């Protein structure tokens, strides 16, 4: 594949980077990334991956755009209230970059559809806002050996970690069990500073691009915690746990479970 003149201009600031070049930009154009959620994190992740030229971006979300989303979900806008978030995001991303094909899925991610949905993608990004989904996505990625870039936000704090199944830790090595429902407030209950989602989403997008390029270090065996009020980034070591229920030596979880049990989702 040769670059068109438009592509040379669009990607010029990538191509002149020694770590990217024409070869790296072609890897980005051929990459397929699946994003769970078209909300606070899915919007900035998808936005930057679309700008970078990631050729195929899959996105799943069952919600429609609400006014209360627009304080942080930057792929949507006031004219798209009531529109499916994946349709809104597709319109935004494809308008930004016609090289990108956004595959939007209007559904809830579940144990019954996740393996099929992610199996043809290179990398998965978790931008979900609840624990059942986070564990579901983790377990599915471990089982399919898909790299997973996981992010979370609450109030003024964000977390990012990159899971390379077989090589490093997984989400269950980090937090063995799901916290009981109601213990950890959701962002709907506790609030979130909108701009935090941009910080965390841009970090996730950067991890994805480094994985595609095969350059630099990623947050393998590491949890990055961003405290916006203190303006502090902290890295916490997370060793792979050989007793982990899903990625350990003798995993007890060998098929996807009913993660919603005991959880009511809003």
């Amino acid at each position, binding site marked *: 594949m040769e670059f068109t003149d438009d592509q040379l201009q669009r990607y010029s600031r990538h191509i002149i980077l020694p770590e990217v070049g024409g*070869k790296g930009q072609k890897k980005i154009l051929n990459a397929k990334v699946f994003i769970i959620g078209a909300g606070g994190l899915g919007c900035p992740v998808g936005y930057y991956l679309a700008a970078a030229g990631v050729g195929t971006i899959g996105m799943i979300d069952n919600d429609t755009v609400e006014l209360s989303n627009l304080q942080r979900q930057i792929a949507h806008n006031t004219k798209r209230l009531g529109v499916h978030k994946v349709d809104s995001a597709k319109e935004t991303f494809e308008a930004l970059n016609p090289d990108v094909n956004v595959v939007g899925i209007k559904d809830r991610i579940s144990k019954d559809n996740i393996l099929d949905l992610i199996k043809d993608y290179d990398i998965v990004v978790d931008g979900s806002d609840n624990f059942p989904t986070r564990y579901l996505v983790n377990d599915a990625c471990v089982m399919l050996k898909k790299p997973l870039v996981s992010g979370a936000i609450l109030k003024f704090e964000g977390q990012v970690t990159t899971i390379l199944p077989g090589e490093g830790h997984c989400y269950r090595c980090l937090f063995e069990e799901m916290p009981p429902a109601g213990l950890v407030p959701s962002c709907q209950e506790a609030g979130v500073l909108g701009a935090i989602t941009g910080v965390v989403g841009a970090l996730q997008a950067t991890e994805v691009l480094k994985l595609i390029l095969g350059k630099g270090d990623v947050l393998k065996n590491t949890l990055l915690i961003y405290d916006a009020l203190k303006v502090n980034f902290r890295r916490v070591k997370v060793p792979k746990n050989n007793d982990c229920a899903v990625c350990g030596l003798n995993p007890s979880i060998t098929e996807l479970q009913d993660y919603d049990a005991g959880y009511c989702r809003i």
Partner: protein
Amino acid sequence: MEDIKIDKRINIKGLICPYTFVKSKLAIEDIEVGETLEILLDYEEASRSIPKSMEDHGHKILKVEKINDTDWTITVRKEKE
């Protein structure tokens, strides 16, 4: 002066920065380590910036020559992938 064997030539006259370097970089990606690329250009600033950028990327500048009132040639040897 000994002749330098040129493996690939590109003409980027009419282009300005950063496309002068974008085209040059894509061209050097296409040749093998040890081979040489000759770049013909007419954008004066690039006659200084391309050699610097190529050296930053680890390649060897063999020659920079003003060949007439408007044009330069830059000869680079690819030193690494």
